[in-house]
Structures are given as C-alpha cells and as structure tokens.
C-alpha cells in the first residue's frame, strides 16, 4: 500500500526530508558543494579558501533554495539547515564556521528570529573560544513587523538573499572581514520587504496547514514560516495587492527621488512564475510612477515557505558599489550569472 501522505507530499519518512533533500542537492551539484551529513551542513567545494573572508548562513529548512542553494562561488561558503522552520543548532554553525575559515574571518548572516539569533550567538561564542574571528550580522527587513519593545523586532526575509549575493561578491573580491560585514549591514539598512499569502503551508511533520485562509482572502504581512500575518482582507486585483506591498515598503524605506533600486519579487513556493512576472509588471510601473528607477531585479522563488501561495516584495536602494557587487559573477545551484 502506498504511504499515506495527507498533504500530498513526496516523502519517504517525514523525519528524513531535510537530510534526503540535501543529499539530492549535493548529488546534483558536486562541482559546487558537498553535504556533510554528520555535521548537517552544506559546504562550498572550494572551502576553505586561504585569505578569503567566508560567509555562512543558516536557518530552518522549508525556505529552499535558501540557504543551501546559495552555496558555491561568489555567495555563501556554507549553510546550516535546521529542521523545517526550526533554527539549526550551534554545533552545526560551529562545524560550518570551522569548515570554511580561511584565516580571514567568518561572517554569520543571521535572520532575525529568536531561535536563529540565540543559536548563532552560542555558536559565535564557541568559535571565538576556538580562535576564529566571527562577526554576526542580523537581517531584519520585514516592514510588516513593528520594531518596538513589544516585539522580537523585524523579521529577516528577502533582504537575506540580496545580502548573501552582494556580500558574497565582496568577499570573493578580496574584501576584509570588516568590509564584508559592513556590506551585509548596508544591504540590510537599505532594503525593506513585505509579504502576502494566498494560502498557508503544510509542515511535513504535522501534515496540517498552519492557518486556514478562507476563500477570497489574502493574509497581509506574512513571514516565511507559515506564521499568520498581521491582518486579513478580501483579495482584490493583483494591482491592488501590489499597491499595498509597494506602499508598505516605500513608506518605510523612504528612497530619495530618482533612486536606483533593485526590485525583488519573490514567490513563496506555491505561486507560479507567470503570476510573479505579472506582479513584477505592476511593481515596475508603480515604482517608476513614484519617480524611482528599478535598474536591477530578481524574480522567482528564492526564499520560500514550503508550498505557500503568495509573494513578497523586497526593494533595495542601490549605489554604484552595490550595483557592481550585484552584477559580479555568481555560481550557485539557485543563482548563476557571469560565470
């Protein structure tokens, strides 16, 4: 008899999903990376590279291709995947840090979630005890969360992908630890994101949707863990939804008139590319109407929430340096150009 999969997922044993998926990633890209099953980390084939600042990131799984799909050349040197939607543990981060340290230091790119922050903090302390220079930069670009004393602070979402690419280019170009760390910070400070969902997602361990979204409703201000957003509205046209997203992002970012932007329209996992391009059409028009110049873009599902239907918009205000680093060659399973 076939295995019961309430959620219609391709699974052997749900508990083995993360490990089996990472083994597949490694089997598909042996030229770029390896999967260390014992340490539960994905490591770039070229690591450690003597004298190069190394970048690692990590977080719960279920956001693929983040982070393992960004390990390779010109982006991450290693990734630490946790269980689905659960932060990895310090042992993984420490093993990754040791595996990639080429003597120039290691940057930890940490999405702002309590679990990720606490586990990375413990790992950074352990690495320092072992004599490795580590800086930890927290990404918190999600404008849907009010940053106040009354929350855990803004979540790290789409800007994580952009920071990994841009800082990865800086490190590949020979920048030192302080410069690479500053580059991550700069991307985070200049980027804002806002996400919407049309459906929940179904974590494989429970096999049940995290929330129920009635027909015709859109969940506004979602994160990437299937957690509900801040409010629900009836679903209007795509143009109406993009109005909300662009307004949320721009009112917080406050870019200068005529600013050059990178617009990142990200799918949450269950929204097809045809709709993402439709959204980009709206985003591009609305940004230009606001007197801004979207000179770079990224469209696709890069930081996802399992099979959630939905999308997020990330806007990054660029300068010559950031454009140069964005355009620099990258070769990873999920992002590749110029090489």
């Amino acid at each position, binding site marked *: 008899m076939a295995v019961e999969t309430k959620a219609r997922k391709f699974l052997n044993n749900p508990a083995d999903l993360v490990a089996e998926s990472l083994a597949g990633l490694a089997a598909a890209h042996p030229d770029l990376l390896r999967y260390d099953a014992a340490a539960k980390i994905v490591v770039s084939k070229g690591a450690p590279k003597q004298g190069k600042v190394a970048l690692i990131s990590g977080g719960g799984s279920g956001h693929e291709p983040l982070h393992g799909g960004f390990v390779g050349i010109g982006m991450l040197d290693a990734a630490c995947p946790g269980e689905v939607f659960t932060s990895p543990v310090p042992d993984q981060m420490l093993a990754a840090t040791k595996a990639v340290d080429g003597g120039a230091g290691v940057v930890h790119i940490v999405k702002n979630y309590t679990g990720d922050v606490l586990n990375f903090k413990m790992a950074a302390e352990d690495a320092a005890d072992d004599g490795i220079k580590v800086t930890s930069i927290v990404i918190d670009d999600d404008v849907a969360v009010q940053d106040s004393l009354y929350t855990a602070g803004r979540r790290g979402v789409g800007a994580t992908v952009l920071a990994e690419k841009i800082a990865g280019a800086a490190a590949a170009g020979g920048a030192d630890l302080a410069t690479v760390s500053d580059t991550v910070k700069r991307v985070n400070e200049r980027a804002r994101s806002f996400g919407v969902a049309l459906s929940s997602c179904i974590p494989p361990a429970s096999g049940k949707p995290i929330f129920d979204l009635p027909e015709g409703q859109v969940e506004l201000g979602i994160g990437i863990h299937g957690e*509900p957003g801040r409010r629900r509205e009836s679903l209007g046209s795509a143009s109406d939804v993009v109005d909300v997203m662009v307004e949320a992002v721009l009112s917080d970012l406050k870019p200068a008139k005529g600013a050059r932007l990178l617009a990142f329209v990200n799918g949450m996992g269950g929204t097809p590319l045809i709709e993402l391009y439709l959204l980009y059409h709206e985003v591009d028009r609305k940004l230009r109407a606001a007197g801004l110049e979207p000179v770079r873009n990224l469209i696709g599902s890069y930081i996802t929430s399992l099979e959630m239907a939905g999308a997020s918009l990330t806007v990054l205000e660029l300068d010559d340096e950031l454009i140069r680093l964005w355009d620099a060659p990258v070769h990873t399973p999920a992002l590749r150009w110029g090489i």
Partner: protein
Amino acid sequence: MITEQAMDAATITSWMREIETSVRSERDYLVQLDAAIGDGDHGTNMVRGFEAVVQALDGEAAAPPGRLLILAGRTLVSTVGGASGPLWGSALRSGGRVLGDQPTFEGGQLVEVLAAALASVKDLGAAVVGDKTMVDALEPAVDTLRTELAASAPLATALGEAAEAAETGMRATVPLQARKGRASYLGERSIGHQDPGATSTALIIRALQRAVSAAG
C-alpha cells in the same frame, strides 16, 4: 528549614524521563498551540530534544546530579534548535552548575537550581513575566516552591503547589499580547491563545513533581 527527602542522580534521570513521556503525549497539543501563534514546531522539537536527553543520560548512572543536568542542557542545545533549545539548554546547565559535584541535594538547593534556570532564561531571552513566554510559568513555580519550603511544607506538597502555580501562569498567558518570540509578530492577534512555551514549562514542572513523589 527541614525537608525530609534527599534527591540524587536518580531524581534527575527520572525527571527527564517524566518530561519525555509528558511532551510526547502532549506533542500534538503543543504543536496545535504553536501553530496558532508561532510556526507549529514546538511539540516536535521538545520531543526530539528530550528523547535525546533520556538517551544521553542512559549511560551516565554514576554521574552526580549536577553533571546530569549539565549533560541534559548540552543535549538540548545540540538537538532542539529553535528558541527552546538554547533557552532550556542554558536553563538546565545553569541549574546543574549550582549542584557542582555533590551526590545528593535537598529541597532548598532544588529551589536554587530552578532559580538559576529561571535567571538564565530571563537573561538569554530578555523576557519578564507578562511577555507571554515560558517565564510566565517558570517564575511563579520557582517563587511558590521557595515560599512553600520556607513555610516547612513537605517537598512533594511544595512541588505540587509549584506545578499548580506554573499551570496558573500558563493559563494566564491566554489574554496576553506576546512581546517576545515569533508570536510577537502577530501583535494583537496573539491575544486569546495560550503560549506553547509556558505550556511545556508547566509540563516540565509537573514532571518534576511526579519524579520526586515517585521516589518518595
């Protein structure tokens, strides 16, 4: 203060076993609470962690109780992930350090173990009572245990009262708006839901009462 009962390594092992049984039988409930205001992994994570703890403690029958707590804490840090891993991991390690290498301990020291655990959770998580976190269950449990023992209550009775206090604190999280952790992203929508971390904390204190009562 007189407590009639000395505790030892077997108490710790039995406590961890009781927790494992308890979080396993309440796994779906914890998952359901967490799905409402978090991401639905709390039950799964706690079960994974305490299964590993029970396994790790299996070969350590000769170790002193403080060492067992430290080992349990380390195991949680290495297996749980999320926020609960570092929080409970640090809590048990801090608690274990209070006991050092002594072979037995009494009620008064158990209070100090739990107080150290609470202090490390508050320090790492920067949470206070009312934030809708595990602190809402843990702090009243520690306070109650201290007060009861100071009033010369028998240890098992005092622990029963502490477990009650934890459960009261747990229920009191329902009307609160979360100010820490993932639930805080929901703002007012977190109101009306019981905090999963406070719930597992109440289970952990109740498990301690069972472990001590069974030994007595």
